[in-house]
Each structure stands twice: as structure tokens, then as C-alpha cells.
């Protein structure tokens, strides 16, 4: 039996989530196995231009326009999707592994009793069995898990693991009506706040020297700053340091902070958790300094030094005649 692959298109303030083309690419692979096509779902209000831009990937877009869907709530989205799932009986529901995606996917799976695999780096269908590939334990262990069900699989896909889909012809927008009961949505959207404008703008920096937990003490930031100054850069940080208030939140590089693309990124004492790497992996040159030779940062770095940054950087400054 041929079954469709449903892609839930996350969007915010009139823009599609940048990971949607990756989801569509993975959905095309899955559709080849399930014998169906790719359907994208847009839930929103007054979002017709977004529906059109989704259609540029060559798929049918199911567009549900309802004031109740104007702002994302897990309850509203789960209700709408439960209705669309019943109508289209898809094999897989693909959702981005974002703050919103891992809010929605488990809620949907729990409330509609659907099988779930989250934060997958890959996913495939084999004779109706879902094979979910996940990375665990600081990305040091990978696992393949088989989930078997007649019901649609709910999957969230990690960003940056799939080559984005290119636009294609043949897409169209189909407006659909979904029955929604607002009294059953127990959360109400209030507002969206942006982070305060920072002291420096990491996003435009040419050279970033970033510090992580490996620098051990707040006082050691002085060394990082001295090194950054010497090579014409600014100081960034991984999440643990901004959580500790060693540096302002505006200096945080990663999924929940800034996405940067400098000419040079020097990672000092940063292990390279997914949440950090997704914010800096596109730097032109990445130099990593870490005492742990198995740290995942060495997978994205171009040049790696297994060393204590607190020893290596003073030695480099000396070499440079600072």
C-alpha cells in the first residue's frame, strides 16, 4: 500500500524554519520506500505567501488557515495534525528537532498514541519498519532502533544531517479545514521577545576565539581575551559559560545563541556538543584545542590540538611575540 510522508512546516513571523528543505529531502527518500508522495503541512493564519513558498519544493501543501493556529501551541497543532493524519493516513510524520519540534512531536505521539523517534540523524523505512538512527552520550555512541507499527511514525530530525532539497516544479497549495476546539487548548500565546542587543555582534565578527568549560575558571577568560586581541578577534563562548554568567548571553555561540560564520573560529576547551556545533560549523577555518582526543569538536574542526588551552595559548602568544 502506498502511503504519504507528511512534513510539518515550522514557521515564525512570516518565515519558514531554515531546516524545512532538509526535512523535505529526507521525506523524498522515505516516500520512495513507502510508495507515496511528500505532503507538506502548513498550520497558521493569514500565511498564504508561506504556503506558496512551500509549494516551490514541488509538493502538495496542505494549508490549514485558522485564527486558533495563528501562534504555535502544542495543543492546537496536535489537534490539527490528528485530524490531518486521520484524513491522509501517512506512513511518517516528519518534524524538525527544534524547540518547537520537540515540544510538538512527543505531545502528538502521547496524545494520539503514535510511535515516536526523536533527534534522529537518519531515518529509513524497511518493509514498513522504521529504522531510526540516533546519536547518544555526547555523540560518542550511535544506535539503530527498529520501531514497528501500523500507525504513522512520528519522527524529529536533527538539523544539519541531511542535504537540503532543491526547489522543484509541480507543487500546489490545497486549503484544508481542520476542526479545532479552542477550549481544549490549555496554553495561550502571550508574546515573543527578542534578546537584547549585545555589546558586540558575534554574527559579523571575522575572528572568534570561543571558550568552553575546559578553561576551568572565570579568571582564565583574561587569557582568552588576550589571545583574541592578538589575532584581531572577539571572545565567544559555549553555553555552560554564559549559563554561569562568566560572559553575557550575547556571546553564546550555538543553537540557543548566535549562529556565526567567521573566517577563523578557535574553540578552546569546548567539547563540541551538537547544540554548539550547529552554531559554528560553517566557519571557514576551525581550530580546536581540547584535552580529550575523542571530543566531537575534532569532527568539525579543520585543525586539532590535543592540549590544554591554558598551556597552549600562552605558548602561542610567546611565539607570536605578543
Amino acid at each position, binding site marked *: 500500500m502506498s502511503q504519504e510522508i507528511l512534513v510539518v512546516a515550522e514557521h515564525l513571523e512570516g518565515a519558514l524554519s531554515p531546516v524545512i528543505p532538509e526535512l523535505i529531502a529526507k521525506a523524498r527518500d522515505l516516500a520512495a520506500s513507502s510508495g507515496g508522495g511528500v505532503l507538506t503541512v502548513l498550520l497558521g493564519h493569514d500565511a498564504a505567501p508561506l504556503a506558496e513558498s512551500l509549494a516551490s519544493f514541488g509538493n502538495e501543501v496542505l494549508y490549514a488557515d485558522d485564527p486558533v493556529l495563528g501562534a504555535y501551541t502544542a495543543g492546537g497543532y496536535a489537534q490539527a495534525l490528528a485530524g490531518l493524519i486521520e484524513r491522509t493516513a501517512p506512513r511518517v510524520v516528519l518534524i524538525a528537532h527544534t524547540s518547537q519540534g520537540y515540544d510538538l512531536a512527543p505531545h502528538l505521539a502521547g496524545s494520539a498514541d503514535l510511535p515516536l523517534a526523536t533527534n534522529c540523524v537518519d531515518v529509513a523505512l524497511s518493509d514498513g519498519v522504521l529504522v531510526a538512527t540516533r546519536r547518544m552520550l555526547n555523540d560518542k555512541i550511535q544506535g539503530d532502533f527498529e520501531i514497528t507499527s501500523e500507525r504513522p511514525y512520528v519522527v524529529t530530525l536533527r538539523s544539519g544531517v541531511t542535504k537540503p532539497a532543491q526547489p522543484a516544479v509541480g507543487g500546489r497549495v490545497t486549503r484544508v479545514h481542520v476542526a479545532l476546539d479552542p477550549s481544549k487548548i490549555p496554553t495561550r500565546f502571550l508574546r515573543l521577545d527578542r534578546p537584547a542587543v549585545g555589546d558586540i555582534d558575534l554574527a559579523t565578527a571575522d575572528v572568534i576565539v570561543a571558550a568552553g568549560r575546559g578553561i576551568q575558571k572565570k579568571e582564565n577568560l583574561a587569557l582568552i581575551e588576550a589571545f583574541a586581541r592578538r589575532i584581531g578577534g572577539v571572545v565567544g563562548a559555549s553555553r555552560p559559560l554564559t549559563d554561569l554568567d562568566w560572559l553575557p548571553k550575547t556571546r553564546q555561540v550555538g543553537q540557543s545563541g548566535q549562529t556565526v560564520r567567521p573566517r577563523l573560529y578557535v574553540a578552546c576547551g569546548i567539547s563540541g556538543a551538537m547544540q554548539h556545533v550547529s552554531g559554528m560549523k560553517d566557519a571557514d577555518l576551525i581550530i580546536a584545542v581540547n584535552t580529550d582526543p575523542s571530543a566531537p569538536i575534532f569532527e568539525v574542526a579543520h585543525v586539532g590540538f590535543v592540549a590544554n588551552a591554558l598551556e597552549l595559548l600562552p605558548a*602561542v602568544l610567546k611565539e607570536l611575540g605578543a
Partner: protein
Amino acid sequence: MPLNVVVCLKQIPNPDLQFQVAPGGQDIRRETLSYKTNGADEFALEEAVRIKEKHGGRVLALTVGPKRTEQMLREALAKGADEAVRVAFDEAASFDPGKIARILAAALRTVPHDLVFTGVQSDDMVSSATGGLVAGILGMAHASVVTKVQVADGGLEVSCELEGGLERSYAVRLPALLTIQFGTNQPRYAPLSAIMRAARQPIRELTPSDLGAASWNAFAGSYGFRIRGLTPPAAKGRAEMVAGRVADQAKRLALILRDRGFVRR
């Protein structure tokens, strides 16, 4: 408004360790692991205790896991939880968050709960699924990646962190489940007297029959779940590694910086 707050805690292998796949590929080798409380759960516990201190009520620390997790529950008691419950599910390699969520949901049905907290993710499995599943199963209100919780007008106002540091706020009806973000507060240290007291406090244990089931298998979902195999991940692009003494490494790094024009003199 006093609230019954349940905080779900998980004990995980310290993710900074090295890991090896056990023979057979169905689990990691566990003989030499050391365990700790999941990072985000520490913030969930602290948030729960702060709500109790401000508004009254009780905090119950709940976990699903083997006997060793009692250590974690005692720490929670010392840091301000009023009681502790351990669901005595002892399956080391439990990779299906759906099963754990069904067990947690069944356990939650046996205790009063206006508010349930979990950490935003466990640092071992990184699924970010258990909290949302529990909320979906129990039909509770739910918000994820929460960095601020205010009790107001018989409900809550919460802020959720999105990518790029954006914050989205919601009014949330009770009962509700929130997954708490890492760094939301400053978790406290337990005073010695509280640690001594917690060492003597009872920890309630729940078995399948306490949850109305014949065995833990009753909590497997309506789907089949099988571990095909665990492997060390294939290294993607690997950095060109510079070995040697620090002085030699420093020479090399200085050379790279000069060659690429990051240092002019």
C-alpha cells in the same frame, strides 16, 4: 496558591566519560560507569523547590530506575524535596522513551500533581521526548525549554526558549507539565544537616502491581521496539591533528595564524 509539584529526575552515566559498546551491541558497557543526576533535572528540582518556598505546597521527587538512583533521590530530599518515590524499573538499556513515559504517567496517576517538571533533555539519550509524551498521555497542558515560571491567577505564565535566543511566553492552565531548560536558575547546595536528615528519610518504591500492571512489559507501547545495534559513530571529517609537546604545537599554531594572515607581524 499551594501547589503539588512533582519533579521527574533521571540518573545518567556521566556523559564526559568514554563509552564502549557491549558485546552483542545491545547496550554500552556499564561495569565502569559513574552516574550523576541529569544536568537539566537539577534546574527542574531547584525551580520546583523555589515555587514551594514562594507559594507553599509540596515537592515530590520521582524517578524510574534501579536501586542506585536512591542516592539521587536523597540528594533531592536534601535540597528541598518533601518526599521521594522510586519506580523500581530496573532495565539498564532502556532506549525507548515511550515506555518510560508510560511508566511515569502511571506513577503520576497515583500521586497529587498540579505541576510536573522534567529537565529539557537527558544528556545521555538526548531525546527531549519523555516530558511531552507524559503530557500527551495524561492530557495535561505542556510547555518545553522553559526558562521562567510564574504562578499567577490560578495558572502559570511561562517563557520558552527558541532558537537564536528568542523567548515565547504562554499563559498555561493547570495541571501542567514543563520541561525546564539548563541554566534556568542557580541550583542550591544541600546543607550538611539536610543531607544527614535525608539519609534517614524513607523512599517509597512502586512496583508494576502498585501501578495496576502484571509486569513492566504492560507499559510497552502499541508498537514494537527493538535495538538493531549500537556502534561508535563513524567519524565524519576528522581534523588534521597536531601532536607533540606544547612548545611544538604552539609553533605550529603560530605558523598557521601567520600563513593565513591573522597575524601581521
